[in-house]
């Protein structure tokens, strides 16, 4: 059912943990990649090799190890630029995670260090997000609104779990300075259509940012084609290590923005009373960066590219279509989010009537070795919108199989038996 040439069993061999036996003889069924993905041997070995044989600080050490480290770190930037089709490698800023990338952009606004008109913000200005955001695309903007007196507004979400853009023209207006929404919801799986919102943002002269943490790992993302101004994503959800994230931004905007963190390597020259800054991307990379993590992320991009992002997308689409058929067989199961495999990714959140998600997750884990996420998935406002405190979430990736979805369905039937 997957794309020709896509061999999930061969892929699974690259992730030894998937063959691990858990205490009590359970085999692992990992359905929590939306939370964090597993890592293939290729990524682990690249990091180990670098740490063992080539490690030195980057950008400043003149010796062999320093050069090799700098070369590998900057090569990782090239790989990421290629992976998301950035027009220039200098537009790839390494951060700690997607949250830092979002905060970096938020701190550029209303910042007295910056002088660019597009980033001025004060009372009367508006910031637009959506009700389906992860907390990392909500809280930085709340803080920005508090700092500047600007107003935070948001797109509502429909009952089906789609972005409600009916009020687009009123919501995004001449007062809007930035629109920041998720490309793919970490709860609903919904893939948002960017173009109508971007068109309106352009009409009113607002900037637009995408939280692509859940899309870049799962589908081909071309930042040029998207046409937005900023894209944030993270390494650990795309078979890379934790501790490394990425901000892509248009060169001329990154140039116009004030620095975020001050420190080593982000400067050009420093006097006691002032400094000048390094050109982008280094202007935004203060201090020793996560060197080996960046190199690991480069290896992750190579790994995904070798398999093919189109293939991965097709595989996940097949999985989610299968799951959307199979899950409603479970009595009392309600899917929160689109119930058709159209414009949605491989993330399915659901409730079981009368059974708390923590009980669901515990039984799935302890009896069947099935790892899902339970709770509000860092998207509390979205859960409030649907009037539920929490959901159970299964999220799929390139290494998952329909047999694992069958196991999930069996597990949920058992949960019903225990608590029913």
């Amino acid at each position, binding site marked *: 059912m997957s794309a020709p040439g896509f061999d999930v069993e061969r892929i699974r061999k690259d992730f030894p943990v998937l063959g691990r036996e858990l205490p009590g003889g359970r085999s692992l069924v990992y359905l929590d990649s939306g939370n964090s993905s597993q890592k293939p041997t290729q990524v682990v070995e690249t990091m180990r090799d670098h740490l063992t044989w080539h490690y030195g600080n980057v950008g400043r050490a003149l010796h062999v190890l320093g050069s090799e480290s700098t070369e590998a770190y900057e090569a990782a930037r090239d790989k990421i630029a290629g992976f998301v089709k950035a027009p220039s490698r200098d537009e790839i800023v390494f951060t700690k995670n997607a949250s830092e990338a979002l905060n970096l952009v938020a701190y550029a606004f209303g910042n007295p260090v910056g002088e660019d008109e597009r980033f001025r913000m004060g009372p009367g200005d508006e910031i637009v997000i959506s009700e389906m955001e992860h907390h990392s695309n909500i809280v930085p903007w709340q803080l920005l609104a508090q700092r500047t007196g600007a107003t935070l507004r948001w797109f509502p979400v429909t009952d089906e779990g789609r972005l409600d853009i009916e009020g687009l023209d009123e919501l995004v207006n001449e007062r809007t300075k930035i629109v920041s929404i998720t490309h793919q919801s970490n709860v609903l799986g919904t893939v948002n259509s960017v173009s109508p919102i971007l068109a309106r943002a352009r009409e009113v002269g607002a900037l637009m940012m995408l939280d692509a943490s859940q899309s870049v790992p799962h589908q081909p993302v071309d930042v040029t084609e998207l046409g937005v101004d900023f894209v944030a994503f993270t390494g650990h959800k795309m078979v890379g290590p934790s501790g490394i994230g990425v901000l892509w931004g248009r060169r001329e905007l990154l140039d116009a923005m004030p620095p975020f963190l001050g420190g080593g390597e982000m400067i050009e020259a420093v006097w006691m009373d002032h400094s000048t800054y390094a050109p982008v991307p280094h202007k935004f990379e203060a201090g020793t960066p996560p060197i080996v993590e960046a190199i690991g992320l480069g290896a992750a991009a190579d790994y995904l590219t070798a398999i093919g992002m189109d293939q991965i997308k097709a595989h996940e689409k097949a999985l989610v279509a299968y799951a959307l058929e199979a899950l409603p067989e479970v009595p009392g199961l309600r899917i929160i989010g689109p119930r058709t495999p159209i414009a949605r990714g491989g993330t399915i959140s659901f409730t079981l009537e009368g059974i*708390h998600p*923590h009980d669901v997750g515990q*039984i799935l884990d302890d*009896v069947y070795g099935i790892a899902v996420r339970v*709770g509000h998935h860092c998207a509390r406002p979205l859960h409030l919108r649907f009037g539920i405190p929490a959901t159970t979430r299964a999220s799929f990736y390139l290494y998952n199989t329909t047999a694992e979805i069958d196991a999930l369905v069996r597990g949920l039937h058992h949960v019903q038996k225990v*608590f029913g």
Partner: protein
Amino acid sequence: MIGESMYQELILEHYKHPQGRGLRDPYDAEVHHVNPTCGDEVTLRVKVADGGKVLDVSYDGQGCSISQAAASVLHELATGSTVEESLSVVEEFTRLMQGRGQVEPDEDVLGDAVAFAGVAKFPARVKCALLAWMAYKDALMRSQG
């Protein structure tokens, strides 16, 4: 089958048929406690007689089976006992829950609450079991002024 040992029959019984659920008058103190990591919440009231006898522990809330069953067991154990007695049960229960599965529970003190011993091995769930019990302790302190 680790998990099902946590979900003792007695816990599931209390979860499906909670004892003393619902907020009642009269009461001396009411508290509202939440577990921010999972959204479980409980509102709890206590009514204490002049002699220190706990006349009623009433509660309402939402959450997982562990948190709801723990509230039900608490109601049974505390109602009709004295403040002092019930606090010693709370203390023993807390010791058991925070013992990472290493503590041998005192069944004479704990009664039905001993069924929660398995929960102590699951650090993520200990707060669920303690939610209503901490709320009770808090309510007692407030009722004593």
